[in-house]
C-alpha cells in the first residue's frame, strides 16, 4: 500500500529509473514492514523532494493536474508510517496544494467554466464539465483536507476555509467551499469507519488513499456497511440523505469519462496518462494480492492491457476506475446501490438529468475521494478501459461483487427477529392470538441487544399499513404480511383444538416471522421509527385501520377499486426498457409461482390423501391379518399393517413438510411479487401525475399565448404566475418520478438478490 503510493512521483520522462528504484524499495519494505519506521523515512524522502520540484513548473496545467495525485500519494504514505515526523511534510504539502489550487482554478477552471455557465444541466456532457471542474478542485481540496485530518481534526475547518478562500472566485469558489466542507467530513467518516474496523496493517494510509479499499478490506474484516454507519453517528445522516443521490453519482462519474478524456487526453497526454496508469496498475495488483479479493483480482488482470495501449486511453481508464471505485463505496453506505450503478450507466442520461442537479454537489465528494483513492488503489474492473460504451461488462462485474457483499450482509443478520409462542388471549369472537416477537441485534440504534415484546396479528398488519403508506409511494417494496383469514381465525377463536387450527396458527407464525425478518433486513425500512417502535416498545397503540369491516377497511376497498380502474386507464409508454423487461419478468414469475403454488398445494392434498389411505389400508390389513387362519401369514399381515402405519406417519410428515417449507415459501413469493408489482404501479402513478402536470403546463402556456395575443396585461400576469407555478410542479413531479423510478429499480434489484438467496431455503430444507 504505502509502497505503491511512492510510485506516484515519476511523472517525468526520467521517472523510469525512479520507478525501478522504488519497486526495489517497495520490495524491501514489504518484507519487513514491522521495523518500517526508519526505513520508511529514508525511502519516502525522494518522493517528497520530487513533489517539491514538481511545484516549480506549476504554471503548466498539465503539472497541476499531475501533482495532486502525486501529493496525495505522498502524504498518506508519510503520515501513517512516521507519525512523529508528519508535521513537516504535512505542512509542506499544505502549502503546496494551495498553490496548485490557484493554478488549477486559473487553468482548468477557466477553460471549463465557460461551458459550465452556459449549458443547461439537462445534457450529460454539461454535467461532466461541471463535475470535471469540481473534481479538479476536489483533488486539491482533498490534499488539504487529508493533511488536516491527520494533523488534528479540530483544525480542519479553519484550514479548509482558508484554502477555499484563496482561490475565491466565481462559481468554482463557491463550489469549492461546499466541497471543502464535505471533504472535511468525508475523511473523518473514513477514519472513524476504518479505525474501529481495525485495518491495522496500514490504517491511515488506507483511509486516504483508498476508500474503495475499505470495501475491499471489508471482505476480510467485519461489517462493511455497519462500519460506515455505526461508529459515526452523525455520518449516518449524511449517508442516509445521500442514499438516493449516491446511485446517481456513479453515472456522472462514468459519463465524466468522455469529456475527461477529451480534455485531458489532448492537454496532457504524456504527463498525465502514464504515471497514473502505472500507479494504478501497480497498486491495484499489490493491494489486491494483499487483500485477496478474488473477484477484483480477477478483473484486475485486464488492466495491464489497456495501460500499455497508449496515453490517450489512459486518462479515461483512470476515470473508469474511479467510477468503478465508486460502486463499492456506495455499496458501503447503502448496500444495494452498486448494482444500480451498473445499470444506470447503461441508461440514457436524460433520465437523471434532474437528479444531477441535486447531486452535482455531492458527487464531487465521492469523486474526489475516488480521485484520491481510486488512483492509488485503482480498483480492478478496468476491463472497460475502452470507454463508457463498455458499461455492461462492468455492471456484470459489479453485480457479482454486489452479490458477494449481499451474501455477507445476509450472513451477518444484524437484526434477527423471531416470532414465537402463539398464545390465545381472550374468549369468543374477541379472542386473538398474541405472538412473542424477540429481537436480537447488534445495531446501536436499539437500546438493548435482545428484547421481546408481545404483538398481535393486527399489529403486524398495522406496521405494514404504516410502512406502505410511507414508503410505498416512493417505490420501495414493502414486504407484505400474510393475509387476514377470517375463516382460519374464526376456527381458532371458536377454540376447537383440532389439528387444522393448530396448523393454521403455525403457518401464520412462520409467515409473520419471515415477513418481519424481511422488513428488518431492508436497509431503509429498518431505519423507520415505526419498525423500531414495533420491535421495542412494550405497548403499541391498537391498529384500527386493519380491521376488515371497519370504515377504514371500507375506504381501503374503495381506494383499491379506483386504483385498479386508473391502472387500466393509464397507458404508459414505457421509456425505459429495463422496467419493461422487469415488469414482464415479474408478471411471468408471478404466474409461474401461482401455478407452482397450486401444484404444491395439490401435492400436499394428495399426500394427505395418501397418508389417509395408507392408514385405512393399514387398518384393514390388520383386520385381514386377524381374520387369516394361517398363523404365520396372519402375523406377516399384521406386520405389514405396522409398516403401513409407519408409512402413513411418514407421508403425513412429508405433507406437513411440504406445506411449511415449500408451499408457504412460494406463497410468500407470490405476496412479494405482488408488492413488487405494487411498486411498479406506484411508479406509473407518479409518472401519470407528471404527465398530467405537463399537460397542464402546456395548457397554461397556450392561454398565455392567447392572452398575449389578446393583449390583456392583467390576466397575462396571472397566467405567467400560473405557468411558473406549474413549471415548478412539473419539475417537482418529474423529479419525483425519477426518484421513484430509481428506488423501484434499486428495490427490484434488491428483491432479486433476496430471491436468489432465499431460493436456497427450499434446498436447505426438506421437501421430498
Amino acid at each position, binding site marked *: 500500500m504505502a509502497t505503491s503510493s511512492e510510485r506516484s512521483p515519476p511523472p517525468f520522462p526520467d521517472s523510469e529509473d525512479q520507478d525501478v528504484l522504488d519497486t526495489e524499495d517497495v520490495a524491501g519494505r514489504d518484507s519487513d514492514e514491522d521495523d518500517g519506521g526508519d526505513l520508511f523515512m529514508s525511502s519516502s524522502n525522494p518522493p517528497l523532494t520530487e513533489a517539491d520540484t514538481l511545484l516549480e513548473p506549476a504554471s503548466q496545467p498539465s503539472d497541476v493536474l499531475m501533482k495532486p495525485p502525486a501529493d496525495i500519494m505522498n502524504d498518506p504514505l508519510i503520515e501513517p508510517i512516521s507519525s512523529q515526523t508528519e508535521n513537516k511534510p504535512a505542512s509542506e504539502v499544505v502549502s503546496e496544494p494551495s498553490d496548485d489550487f490557484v493554478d488549477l482554478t486559473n487553468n482548468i477552471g477557466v477553460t471549463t467554466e465557460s461551458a459550465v455557465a452556459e449549458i443547461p444541466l439537462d445534457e450529460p456532457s454539461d454535467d461532466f464539465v461541471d463535475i470535471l471542474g469540481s473534481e479538479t478542485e476536489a483533488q486539491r481540496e482533498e490534499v488539504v483536507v487529508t493533511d488536516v485530518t491527520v494533523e488534528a481534526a479540530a483544525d480542519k475547518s479553519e484550514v479548509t476555509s482558508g484554502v477555499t478562500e484563496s482561490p475565491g472566485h466565481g462559481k468554482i469558489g463557491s463550489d469549492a467551499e461546499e466541497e471543502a466542507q464535505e471533504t472535511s467530513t468525508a475523511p473523518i467518516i473514513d477514519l472513524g469507519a476504518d479505525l474501529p474496523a481495525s485495518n491495522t496493517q496500514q490504517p491511515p494510509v488506507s483511509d486516504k488513499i483508498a476508500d474503495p479499499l475499505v470495501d475491499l478490506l471489508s471482505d476480510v474484516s467485519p461489517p462493511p456497511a455497519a462500519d460506515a454507519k455505526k461508529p459515526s453517528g452523525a455520518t449516518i445522516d449524511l449517508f442516509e440523505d445521500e442514499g438516493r443521490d449516491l446511485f446517481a453519482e456513479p453515472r456522472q462519474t462514468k459519463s465524466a469519462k468522455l469529456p475527461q478524456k477529451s480534455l485531458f487526453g489532448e492537454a496532457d497526454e504524456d504527463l498525465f496518462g502514464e504515471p497514473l496508469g502505472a500507479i494504478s496498475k501497480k497498486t491495484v495488483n499489490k493491494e489486491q494480492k494483499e487483500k485477496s479479493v478474488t473477484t477484483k483480482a480477477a478483473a484486475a488482470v485486464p488492466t495491464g492491457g489497456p495501460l500499455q495501449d497508449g496515453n490517450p486511453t489512459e486518462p479515461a481508464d483512470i476515470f473508469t476506475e474511479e467510477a468503478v471505485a465508486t460502486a463499492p463505496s456506495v455499496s458501503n453506505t447503502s448496500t444495494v446501490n452498486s448494482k444500480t450503478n451498473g445499470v444506470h450507466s447503461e441508461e440514457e442520461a436524460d433520465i437523471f438529468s434532474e437528479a444531477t442537479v441535486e447531486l452535482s454537489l455531492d458527487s464531487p465528494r465521492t469523486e474526489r475521494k475516488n480521485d484520491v483513492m481510486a488512483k492509488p488503489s485503482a480498483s480492478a474492473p478496468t476491463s472497460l478501459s475502452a470507454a463508457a460504451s463498455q458499461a455492461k461488462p462492468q455492471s456484470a462485474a459489479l453485480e457479482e461483487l454486489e*452479490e458477494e457483499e449481499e451474501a455477507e450482509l445476509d450472513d451477518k443478520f444484524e437484526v434477527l427477529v423471531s416470532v414465537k409462542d402463539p398464545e390465545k388471549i381472550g374468549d369468543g369472537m374477541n379472542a386473538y392470538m398474541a405472538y412473542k416477537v424477540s429481537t436480537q441485534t447488534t445495531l446501536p440504534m436499539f437500546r438493548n441487544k435482545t428484547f421481546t415484546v408481545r404483538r398481535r396479528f393486527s399489529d403486524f398488519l398495522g406496521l405494514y399499513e404504516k410502512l406502505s403508506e410511507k414508503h410505498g409511494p416512493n417505490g420501495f417494496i414493502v414486504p407484505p404480511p400474510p393475509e387476514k383469514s377470517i375463516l382460519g381465525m374464526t376456527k381458532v377463536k371458536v377454540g376447537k383444538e383440532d389439528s387444522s387450527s393448530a396448523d393454521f396458527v403455525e403457518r401464520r407464525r412462520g409467515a409473520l416471522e419471515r415477513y418481519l425478518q424481511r422488513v428488518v433486513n431492508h436497509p431503509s425500512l429498518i431505519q423507520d421509527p415505526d419498525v423500531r417502535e414495533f420491535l421495542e416498545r412494550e405497548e403499541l397503540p391498537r391498529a384500527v385501520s386493519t380491521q376488515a369491516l371497519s370504515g377504514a377497511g371500507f375506504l381501503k376497498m374503495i381506494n383499491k377499486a379506483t386504483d385498479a380502474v386508473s391502472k387500466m386507464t393509464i397507458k404508459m409508454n414505457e421509456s425505459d426498457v429495463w422496467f419493461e423487461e422487469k415488469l414482464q419478468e415479474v408478471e411471468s414469475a408471478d404466474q409461474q409461482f401461482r401455478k407452482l403454488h397450486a401444484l404444491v398445494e395439490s*401435492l400436499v392434498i394428495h399426500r394427505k390423501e*395418501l397418508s389417509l389411505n395408507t392408514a385405512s389400508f393399514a387398518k384393514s390389513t390388520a383386520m385381514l391379518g386377524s381374520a387369516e387362519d394361517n398363523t404365520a401369514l396372519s402375523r406377516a399381515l399384521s406386520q405389514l399393517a405396522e409398516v403401513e402405519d*409407519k408409512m402413513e406417519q411418514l407421508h403425513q*410428515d412429508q405433507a406437513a413438510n411440504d406445506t411449511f417449507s415449500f408451499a408457504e415459501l412460494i406463497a410468500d413469493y407470490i405476496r412479494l411479487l405482488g408488492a413488487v408489482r405494487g411498486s411498479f404501479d406506484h411508479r406509473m402513478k407518479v409518472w401519470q401525475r407528471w404527465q398530467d402536470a405537463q399537460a397542464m403546463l402546456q395548457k397554461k402556456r397556450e392561454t398565455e399565448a392567447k392572452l398575449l395575443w389578446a393583449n390583456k396585461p392583467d390576466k397575462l400576469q396571472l397566467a405567467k404566475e400560473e405557468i411558473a407555478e406549474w413549471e415548478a410542479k412539473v419539475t417537482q413531479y418529474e423529479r419525483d418520478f425519477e426518484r421513484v423510478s430509481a428506488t423501484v429499480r434499486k428495490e427490484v434489484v434488491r428483491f432479486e438478490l433476496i430471491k436468489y438467496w432465499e431460493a436456497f431455503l*427450499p434446498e*436447505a430444507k*426438506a421437501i*421430498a
Partner: protein
Amino acid sequence: MTSIDESNKEKLRSVSVDLNNDASLLIDIPDALCERDKVKFTVHTKTTLSSFQKPEFSVPRQHEDFIWLHDTLVETEDYAGLIIPPAPPKPDFEGPREKMHKLGEGEATMTKEEYTKMKQELEAEYLAVFKKTVQVHEVFLQRLSSHPILSKDRNFQIFLEYDQDLSVRRKNAKEMFGGFFKNMVKSADEVLISGIKEVDDFFEQEKTFLLDYYSKIKDSTAKAEKMTRSHKNIADDYIHISATLNSLSAEDSTGNKKNLEKLSDLFEKLRKVEGRVASDQELKLTELLRYYMRDIQAAKDLLYRRARALADYENSNKALDKARLKSKDIPQAEEHQQHCLQKFDKLSESGKKELTSFKGRRVVAFRKNLIEMAELEIKHAKQDYTHNISGLFPLKPSCSFCLTIFDLLEFFFFFFLL
C-alpha cells in the same frame, strides 16, 4: 395396437398364483393384440397329453371365449365340488383412455415438456393395464391346466385346440338379465339356506372364515387401490411441479437458474420413484388382493353349491318321510334321497380337498408376492434416499425412510420364516 413381447412377460407371469405346473400341459399367452375394444389373445399350448392332436399349437381367443369357458365349467354338474377358477375381468382400458382424452383437452395449459411427460406416463399406464389383462387371462388358463380334473375337461381342450374362431355367441340382453336374476336368486337362496344346520365342523368353520375373510379382503383391496391411486397422483404432481420449476428456471436469469434446474431434476427423479412405487404396489399388492378376492368368491360359490346340495338332501329326506307317510312313490323318493346324499357327500369330499389346497395356495401366493413387494419397496426407498442425498436434501423424511427400510427388512425376514 399394442403387443407384448415375451421378455416383459417373464417377470409378470404368475404373479397372483403359484402354479405347480406339470410339464404335460403348458399354456401361455405370448402375444396379444388390442383392436379398439376387443383384445385378441394368442393362446399357446405345449403338451404331451395324448388327448391333443398335436404337441404344440396356438389359437386366437377373445375375452368372451374365456368367459364362455368359465361359464360352461361352472354349469357343469360334475364340477360342483370344485373351486372353479374365477373368470378374468373384462379388459378395461377406459381409465387410461379417458385420461388421455382429458390430457388432450388440457394440452393448452401445459408446457410441451409437461405434456410429453404426462403422455408418456399415460402410455405407460395403458401398457401396464394391458399387460395385467393378458396376465389374468393367462393365469386363468394356467389354473385350469394345473387342475387334475378341470384340465381334462372337454370344453377346455376344445378351447385350447380348435384353431378357428370359436365365435362364441355373445350374451344377449335376456341372458344378461337372466344372469342377473340368477345372481339375485342365488343370494336370496344363500340367505335361506344359511339357516340350515351344518353337519360338518370343517365346513362350518370354513364358511365363517371365508365370509369374514371375503369382507376383509374386499375392504383391503379397495383401500390398496386407493393408496395406489394416491401414489400415482403424487407422481403426476411431481411431473407438473418439475415442469413448472423448469419453466421458471428457463425464465430466470440469475444464479437461481441452477438451483431451480436442480430442484426440477430432483422432482423428476422423485416422480420416477413414486411412479414405480405406485406400479409395483399395484402389481404386487393390489393385484394379489384383487385376485384372491375373486378366488375367495369362487370358494364361496363352492360352499354355496355344497350348502345347496345339503339343502336338497334334507328336502329329499323330508320328501321321503312324506312319501313313506303317504306310502306313495317311496322308491322314487328314496332314489332321489340317495342321489342327493351321494351328491352331497361327493361335494363335501372334493370341497374339503379343494378348500385345503386353496388355503395352501393362498398362503404361498401371499408370501411370494409380499416378499417381492417388500423387496421392491426397499429398493425404492433406497433410491429415494440416494436421490435425496444427491439432491442436497439433508432430509428428515429420508431418515425416516431409513427407518422404513429397517421395518421392511424386518418384515422381509419374517417372510423367510414362513
